[in-house]
């Protein structure tokens, strides 16, 4: 399986990335060499093998639905690119 330039651009768009024209060939080549490597998997017979999501076959633990953390909004928002009155500011979404 091999990706062409427009497919790589589509994947970049899905990932919210923009690849500049001069970088595109480089990404096409490196992505294809990684996918060539990944294609080795296709030769393995995995019929009936249950996929392993957690190496210990553990599932996410549940906890009681109670408040465990204190409100630290101001401290946490210090890292925000733009925040005001406790809100995260982003470019206008709705006209």
């Amino acid at each position, binding site marked *: 399986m091999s990706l062409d330039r427009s497919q790589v651009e589509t994947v970049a768009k*899905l990932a919210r990335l923009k690849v500049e024209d001069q970088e595109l060939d480089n990404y096409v080549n490196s992505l294809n060499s990684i996918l060539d490597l990944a294609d080795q998997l296709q030769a393995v017979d995995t019929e009936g093998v249950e*996929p392993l999501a957690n190496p210990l076959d553990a599932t996410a633990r549940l906890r009681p639905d109670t408040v465990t953390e204190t409100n630290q909004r101001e401290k*946490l928002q210090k890292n925000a690119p733009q925040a005001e009155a406790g809100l995260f500011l982003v470019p206008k979404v709705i006209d």
Partner: protein
Amino acid sequence: MLDNFIAPYESTATQRLKDAGFVTLGKTNLDEFAMGSSTETSYYGATRNPWNTDAVPGGSSGGSAVAVAAGMAPAALGTDTGGSIRQPAAFCGITGLKPTYGRVSRWGMVAFGSSLDQGGPMTQTAEDAAMIMNTIAGFDPRDSTSMDQPTVDYTATLDQPLNGLKIGLPKEYFGEALDDGIRQAIMEAVKQFESLGATVKEISLPRTELSIPAYYIIAPAEASTNLSRFDGVKFGYRCDNPTDLMDMYTRTRSEGFGAEVKRRIMVGTYALSAGYYDAYYRKAQQLRRLIKQDFQAALADVDVIMGPATPSTAWNIGEKTQDPVAMYMEDIYTLSVNLAGLPGMSIPCGFKDGMPVGLQVIGNYFDEARLLNIGHQFQRATDWHSRKPNV
């Protein structure tokens, strides 16, 4: 992406060290978002190997390995998603332990491959690693992947003799990819273990080579979802003057991430996209179970598995940056341990042309105490761990 970020809270592992009286000297360099095997993808530039400053220190936890190898700190922490503790430990001639998945809390650690990530100690000796483990290991309700297992005194069993220890050598770890100098150093170490009373037999981990494609699907897939949080909204970098929301997301991420991170996000996004999920991610997870079963079968027969941590010693800076797949191939002996979730340790066992060689010891789930015991007994009988680079 996180240059301006100040962590608003302490990680569990570092908090436990602080509570025990450890002093933090600083934060160390690593590959950007831990994606790399050489510390060259760091936003802050490459770290150099103290044994030869033209060579890479390994990665991703290269800065931690160098801090310990060069004597700047007695111990450091690293994280290991596919070898990022063990490989730099091997390249820099120190002891590095990747514990069992879930043994050390990941609260406060940047998420890369959530089903693979684990933090652990990087130290000058196995004994030091045992003391760090006594402090950082254990259940943490704040980490949903933390395993609620009894805590262990890792120092209590360090002095146990190795009489009767059953060691397995996977034949796939000694194939053509392995450098002859490393093979020689590993076999010398194995002889040392025999003289300490261990018995050695050949075993097979038949899907070792397939761990590379399986890992390089699973890890990027999980990374692509984990790194979706870097969108310029709540923390981290944001591009200048975004025109709308999509422009903000796209430029923030394109400007804020380096090339290797972008490459892996794209591989992961593709592997998880509609129509390709079954062929890539699900297939890789099926293979992952087979790899785990291979280890379980081997560990039913032997106590630990030994082999090289890396197929070659540290390469030169710039040598493999143009070909990501060539760099990925260097991870062949470490990736499968993360896929299976087992503990693995690298200890120094010799040199090849002046560069350190690491012996990898892989144990059963939650058997870190045995690995550290083995490391300590080896380090009592040899002095590789006390060799220091001229810095």
